[in-house]
């Protein structure tokens, strides 16, 4: 682009103001994410899918181990104070997870897959938050439970877990 005419055209076009998308774009996107998470995917039979399926089974087992080893869920709370406590717990867990991740920027594939599996569930729960004006106690409880799982997944040494599983 060397001629003055080209440069002028470039400058004039580049100076055109940015356009604004319709409002509510982020909420729309979250809704699409929720749909995408629910939509079953199809693919051709490929050897990679078999190893992936094996990995998923392993992850499911691991998640089951994590869930059963977690402390029992307390009896459902009914007051606003209980919801406030859940909101606070949710915020604390997010902060703790951020702190943990800041100290471990690199993760192995297995832990990444494990975290992604929990976060995928979390995305669905968060989309339900976006769809309601007054999220109920059950929703907050589900979020806290998933964040607790995510915190464990963030800390876990996947190598030793699977080694132990094999030895058992």
């Amino acid at each position: 682009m060397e001629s003055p005419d080209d440069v002028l055209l470039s400058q004039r076009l580049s100076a055109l103001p940015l356009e604004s998308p319709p409002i509510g774009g982020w909420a729309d996107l979250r809704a699409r994410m929720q749909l995408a998470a629910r939509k079953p995917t199809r693919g051709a039979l490929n050897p990679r899918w078999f190893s992936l399926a094996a990995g998923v089974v392993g992850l499911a087992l691991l998640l089951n181990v994590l869930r059963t080893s977690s402390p029992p869920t307390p009896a459902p709370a009914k007051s606003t104070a209980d919801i406030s406590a859940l909101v606070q717990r949710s915020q604390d867990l997010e902060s703790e997870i951020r702190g943990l991740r800041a100290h471990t920027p690199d993760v192995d594939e297995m832990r990444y897959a494990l975290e992604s599996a929990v976060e995928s569930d979390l995305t669905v729960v968060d989309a339900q938050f976006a769809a309601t004006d007054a999220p109920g106690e059950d929703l907050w409880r589900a979020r806290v439970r998933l964040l607790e799982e995510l915190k464990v997944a963030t800390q876990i040494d996947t190598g030793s877990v699977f080694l132990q599983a094999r030895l058992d």
Partner: protein
Amino acid sequence: MDLAITSAWPEAPATSTPPRSSFAIEVSDLLVARLKRRDLEAFEQIYRLFDRPVYTLALRLLGNPTEAYDLSQDSFLKVFEQVAQFRDEAPFWGWLRSIVVNAALMRLRGRRPMEDLDMAAIDSLIENSPDPLASASSHDLKRALDSLPAISRAVVWLYYVEGYTHEEIARSFDRTVSFSKSQVARAANKLRALLNEENGSWNPRTTSY
């Protein structure tokens, strides 16, 4: 492009430095790392940073607000799903922009590029006239741009605003470098011709193809 008239645009004098794309927003490595961990808060930050540049590019390439919005949403969804494929050697914005451009070009497939037929008329319109770009308002320029055929508008935007080379445009459209050069030259001339018409009286019917 071989126009004899040298124009002056008082607000921004012509220099050889190409303007920066509105996409050229630096994103911290930390934010990208959080996005790779599928951190929704990080994703929302990315969305808020880029929603206008993404929508603007989609609109310039496709010319239709509904299609542009749909493409924008698809592109952000793809970012979230495929961010693990992003390699840190290139800027994040360049990767995001390529997602939008590729998706838009997929939708433009099958549409016809500008043909040679109207070139004589265009040449006569711009011959011996002062460069209308120097005096056109942004509103008129945008309207003229919108009047270009889809492929021509896309090529012009990629070349003049996003800084794509002819080789990159040729690759993107799966065509030759000559295709890119001729489309850029014709579309730029057509844009000027439309602005010349604008200086008289705007008649949308005369700008259809």
